[in-house]
């Protein structure tokens, strides 16, 4: 019982850190342009597919497949921002939202046409022999997930705190007009925000590939979870997204382990509704209630 509980919690944290990775990208874009990016989950799929294609064509080193996934999404994110989203920066919110929905449909179906509509298994890079600590089993994939997300989050943190570009992105997130007045190139910042956010989604795609298999639709299950993490974060806090993702992962794993796997999504949405009423500003806001 005790060991099972700990296993579920570890499983939850690992799944949760994946959700965090996706949610962080959503939050970055929300901070910059105040829109929920509906195409984000499709970038996760793009990352998975890019990693798969790279792996099949002989790039088997984990770091290199990761780089391929990151780069493919980074480029696509910047491209899409330049072509479809930048002209809408001053348009009403619903138009921007519809554009992200449209781009999502385009990406998903292009992938389905080019990559085929089939589902492919992605070999686990670290083998399938579980690690045994005491009486607790740990799947090696989970260690990879934790390792990569930790590195990504630390790198992102350093990027935001130490580099000029990262600082300018934070400035744009706080107040776009003020940032522009201070001489920051707003378009360049937003473009990089899209690139990095998509890159993180790509990494999530790489990590989730051995778990959910590779297909044009693989982003679907992550979309809802990342969405809830995004809400728990109050839409605009990166640390909130990270903590929110983990809370969701743990809740999900415990719900599956101890209640029923069928109602896990209902439980998650119920949790989200509670948060909306209790902490509408997000996990890390100081304000309680409506």
């Amino acid at each position, binding site marked *: 019982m005790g060991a099972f509980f700990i296993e579920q919690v570890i499983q939850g944290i690992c799944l949760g850190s994946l959700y965090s990775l996706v949610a962080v990208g959503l939050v970055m874009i929300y901070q910059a342009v*105040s829109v*929920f990016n*509906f195409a984000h989950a499709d970038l996760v799929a793009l990352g998975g597919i890019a990693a798969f294609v790279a792996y099949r064509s002989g790039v088997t080193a984990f770091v290199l497949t990761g780089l391929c996934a990151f780069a493919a999404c980074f480029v696509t994110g910047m491209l899409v921002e330049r072509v*479809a989203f930048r*002209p*809408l920066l001053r*348009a*009403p*919110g*619903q*138009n*921007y*939202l*519809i*554009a992200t*929905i*449209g*781009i*999502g*449909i*385009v*990406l*998903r*179906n*292009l992938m*389905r*046409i080019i990559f085929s509509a089939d589902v492919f298994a992605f070999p686990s890079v670290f083998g399938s022999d579980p690690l045994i600590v005491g009486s607790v089993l740990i799947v090696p994939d989970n260690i990879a997930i934790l390792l990569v997300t930790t590195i990504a989050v630390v790198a992102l943190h350093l990027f935001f705190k130490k580099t000029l570009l990262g600082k300018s992105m934070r400035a744009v997130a706080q107040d776009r007009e003020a940032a522009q007045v201070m001489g920051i190139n707003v378009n360049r910042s937003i473009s990089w925000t899209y690139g990095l956010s998509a890159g993180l989604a790509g990494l999530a795609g790489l990590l989730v590939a051995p778990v959910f298999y590779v297909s044009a639709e693989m982003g679907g299950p992550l979309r*809802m979870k990342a*969405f*809830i993490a995004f*809400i728990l974060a109050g*839409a605009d806090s990166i640390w909130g997204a990270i903590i929110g993702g983990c809370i969701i992962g743990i809740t999900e794993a415990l719900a599956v382990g101890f209640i029923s796997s*069928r*109602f896990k*999504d*209902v439980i998650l*949405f*119920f949790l*989200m*509704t509670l948060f*909306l*009423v209790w902490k*509408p*500003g997000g996990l890390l806001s100081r304000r309680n209630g*409506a």
Partner: protein
Amino acid sequence: MRMRAKRIVLGVAGVLVLIAAVPLVYSQEYFLHLCIMAMISAIVAVGLSLVSGYTGQMSLGHAGLYAVGAYTSALLTTRFGVSFWGAVPAVLVVSALAGVVIGAPSIRLKAGYLTISTVAFGEIVHQTARNWDKVTKGPTGIGAIPSPELFGLEVMTLRAWYYFAFVFLLIAVWISARIVNSHIGRALRAIREHEPAAQVMGINSSYYKVLVFVVSAVFAGMAGALYAHFITFIAPDNFTLNESIGFLVMTVVGGIGAISGAVFGAFVVTIIPEYLRAFGDIRLVLYGLILVLFVLFMPKGLVPFIAEHVRRWTRRATRSQASRDTAPRR
């Protein structure tokens, strides 16, 4: 002003006659089927457009309300032998309650949160329908939903359904028009323009926002019931986030805040993807591209776009007419 009102009435009457004549002139089955689906969706879109146009908030949970209506009616008619008309009051009450449940807490939260909590609501409804086997029969869905009866006749044929759905759409449009032109509409416009000022003038903004959300919920529920009885089969996967997105797309493509825009958008969004089938695999890619192009080049929506161009064109025509009249004679 009288002239203008008269012209509007004439225009509306003309459009109505035109729509009513369609099945008599062109009765290809598939086309009629699409038109009926478009009309049912238009009922949802009209309500949704009231919400987005007047409260500035978007709902992405209307497929949930649509499902609530569809399941209420389907269960009452298949399980308890209630007639369609017997189920209608229940549909209206249940969907209104659902509207209060999501509308009341979320409309008071910070801007944009309605969208988010409606996504959650839609997904909760979807998951409940999928997993509550005993009542909803889970993913297999509910079949053999009876056709409604009208004056002792069953509404079965596509033509009959065309007029049946059309009447419901007319009622929805009429109610919306009445709301927009009433004190409720004025209050909502005041809130949209400047909420604090409206509140100072004694308008209870939360009350009006929830009210309009409940109206849209009732529309969605009723449309869901129509859908259930038209298709005669419903399953949880007919009511996902994608359907909610579809309803929102209709209002934006047609032109937000205009009743005619919502109706027009419903037809465009229902019919375009079907006619893209000729393109095979890339049809959904094209559909996505069309959406993006729409918001890029017609940001206000189709109906305002067309109206603007017609106005410009007629103005130019009258101006050139006037200049010809006043041109100096030799």
